[in-house]
């Protein structure tokens, strides 16, 4: 019985982000990172996201939205 792999889609609003560094500091699997020169948050490694939603809950400017992507089990295996 193969497990269904859960994956997540992270959307970051560039106009709302103000480079406060909270999201990439709280992210344990290092999914989020920053991009110079303005150091706005970017998604670096989406596959590592576990969907804990800490970045979404803690973003002070409400710039991050995490959506679960529902995959079929056969799709997840390939």
């Amino acid at each position: 019985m193969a497990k269904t792999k859960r994956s997540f889609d992270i959307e970051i609003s560039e106009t709302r982000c103000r480079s406060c560094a909270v999201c990439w500091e709280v992210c344990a699997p290092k999914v989020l990172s920053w991009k110079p020169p303005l150091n706005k948050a970017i998604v670096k490694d989406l596959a590592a996201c576990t969907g804990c939603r800490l970045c979404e809950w803690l973003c002070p400017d409400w710039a991050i939205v995490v959506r679960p992507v529902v995959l079929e089990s056969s799709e997840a295996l390939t």
Partner: protein
Amino acid sequence: MSLPNGMPATRPAKKKLDLQRPLDELVEMYADIPDKSFRYCPGCGLGMAQSAIMRAFHRAGVDITKVATAGGSGCYSVMGHYFKSSHIHGSHGRGCAYATGLKLARPELTVLTLQGDGDLLAIGGNHFIHAARRNIDITVICFNNYNFGDTGGQFAPTTPLGSKTDTSSLGMPEPAFDACKLAIGAGAGFVARSTVAHPAHLTKMIADAIEWKGFAFVEVMQHCHVLWGRRNGMPEAMDMMRFYKDNSVLHLSTVPEEERFDIPVYSEDEKDVKFVLGVLHREKKPEYTEEYAKLRAKAMAKLPAKVKS
């Protein structure tokens, strides 16, 4: 069927935490926010607390058109305008007074006050203790950032002993206010404390406070890394959140009796003073609007029939 001690055999179903709902759906339901970022400093804990309050509305299942918030002056005072609820932006420190009047006139509304520590405990201290004494059904949320942030970081009644602020550059000589202890002493029915570094816990505390029948008080430890943190060796938002994580205790039973309800004391050599999170006090008391309705009915019964018509 019930058990011998009077408890029902089946437990009431636990309310399911709707953790998986994306932020934009919640915003559509409860908030009215601008396209650009908020008016707070970058990384400010008020944005996190605002998010927790919105999730608490969702968890408590309130109708947002039947919610009214009140507040005074401070960094937080734009927060009421970011929700779809009604908001009174009143004079400094009078949030509890506005909320009391509103609740008496319209008892069917859910009334919250959003207030800062200087607003609630320094300028509006008298309104706060008397609203707590009356046990009127409002929810007071206090954003404690250890200083007067809006005016440039002067010391407030909640500034921890020994910490540096704009007006106490050699260390605060006065001990700080414990807002939760004050609320318990003044007679509040529900008193809880949480920090922005524990977002799920904070959401639960605020939702429980909204559902509580009677005066409910939630102290939200919310960082001000720009003014308080910068002067005390914590210049980033994450430094202050680590400070909250390290200095807070989530379970009351793990703390000895004499150390409970301790407020943080900040100094160079002593950083290990803990403060307790969670529901610190819960007590059922007669609620003021119900008592007032009874009083009114009694007075109306005494009126002569001529006046009634």
